[in-house]
């Protein structure tokens, strides 16, 4: 039979003693806990002033420590506020995209005429636009990235199949609609 070293045995003994003590403390009433803290020179109210925020807003159903009327109720609801802010940001981004796309499409009509007149290669121009789009994506200027991609698409629809363009469009989509890929939220 493999024997443990005294150091290991002592560590286990101390750990089990701490576990037993924690279990005994857990059975104490709130008043008894406060009394012990006061006896040790700690003000129970002041002690709670620097407690870090609780991990989550909801208590598990049937929680042993919580009174029944409080179980399952949120103690704070920051998530709803976060969702609204995300929704507003997304809506503003979409509106900006549409406005700029409209302005650009007006510009593109004249540009198409110019391209025809000057005989420029639309594929090459689309490629330049896509380079600008990728650069915008790298700078996380998602709306601008989408506008350049759309403009390039009008000039060279086949370029849309490129893996880099697909990745860029996915990145724009994920950034502008973070909740869209998460059903049920």
């Amino acid at each position, binding site marked *: *039979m*493999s*024997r*443990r*070293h*005294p*150091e290991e*045995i*002592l560590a*286990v*003994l*101390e*750990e*089990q*003693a*701490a*576990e*037993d*003590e*924690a279990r005994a*403390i*857990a059975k*104490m009433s*709130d008043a008894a*806990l*406060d009394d*012990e*803290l006061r006896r*040790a*020179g*700690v003000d*129970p109210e002041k*002690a*709670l002033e*620097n*407690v*870090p*925020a*609780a*991990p*989550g*807003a*909801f*208590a*598990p159903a049937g*929680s*042993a*420590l*919580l009174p029944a009327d*409080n179980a399952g*109720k*949120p*103690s*704070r609801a920051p998530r709803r506020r976060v969702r609204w802010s995300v929704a507003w940001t997304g809506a503003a981004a979409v509106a900006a995209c549409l406005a700029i796309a409209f302005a650009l499409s007006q510009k593109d009509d004249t540009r198409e005429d110019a391209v025809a007149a000057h005989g420029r290669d639309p594929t090459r121009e689309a490629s330049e636009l896509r380079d600008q789009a990728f650069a915008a994506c790298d700078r996380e200027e998602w709306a601008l990235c989408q506008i350049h991609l759309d403009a390039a698409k009008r000039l060279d629809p086949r370029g849309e199949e490129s893996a880099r363009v697909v990745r860029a469009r996915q990145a724009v989509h994920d950034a502008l609609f973070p909740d869209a890929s998460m059903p049920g939220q």
Partner: protein
Amino acid sequence: MIEVAKQEWERLFKEVLVAALRMTHTKDSMLVATHRDRAREATQRAFERCLRVRPAEVRSVDALRAYLVKAVRSELSHANDEQESRLEREGAAAVEQATVGGSVHTSAEVIHLDAARALRRRNRAALAIERLREELTAQSDAIALGTVDCIAAGKTEPADQAAFLKCSVEEIYAARKRRKRVLEKILDALDGGDKEDA
């Protein structure tokens, strides 16, 4: 990690703080305030660590309590180490600084201090376990003595110990309480009537 409500979290904070205060309890009136501050700091750090690590295995309030108590013990032992070795480290740093060329190797002083500390820990543990066995034998506490033997053999779970010692799990828990009281006295005596080095 389990999510808990603010009220429950604060109750846990008080529980863990009480445990920390008990761990750092001292009879020396000159050290009471220092030990109380150490307990508060350790509790604060344990909770912050829990939030930072967010241990996935913590899925119940009991598991969370056990995790926090372990974290407090760990914090207090680090605090002990730091406190104990501050002077030694300062001395070692001075020696290293004085070394021409600033050697990248650990100095002989540091090696000797580490070795001495490890030896001191080993001797303390060996002596404590030996005295614990003697005391439990003198008290004819077969179950408590049996739990120590079980732990030495790698059986730490109460159910395994109960099956091995042919008794109930409740008797094992009762024996653990008696064992704890005896061990505390022995460690107090070894540490000079104080828990400073515990």
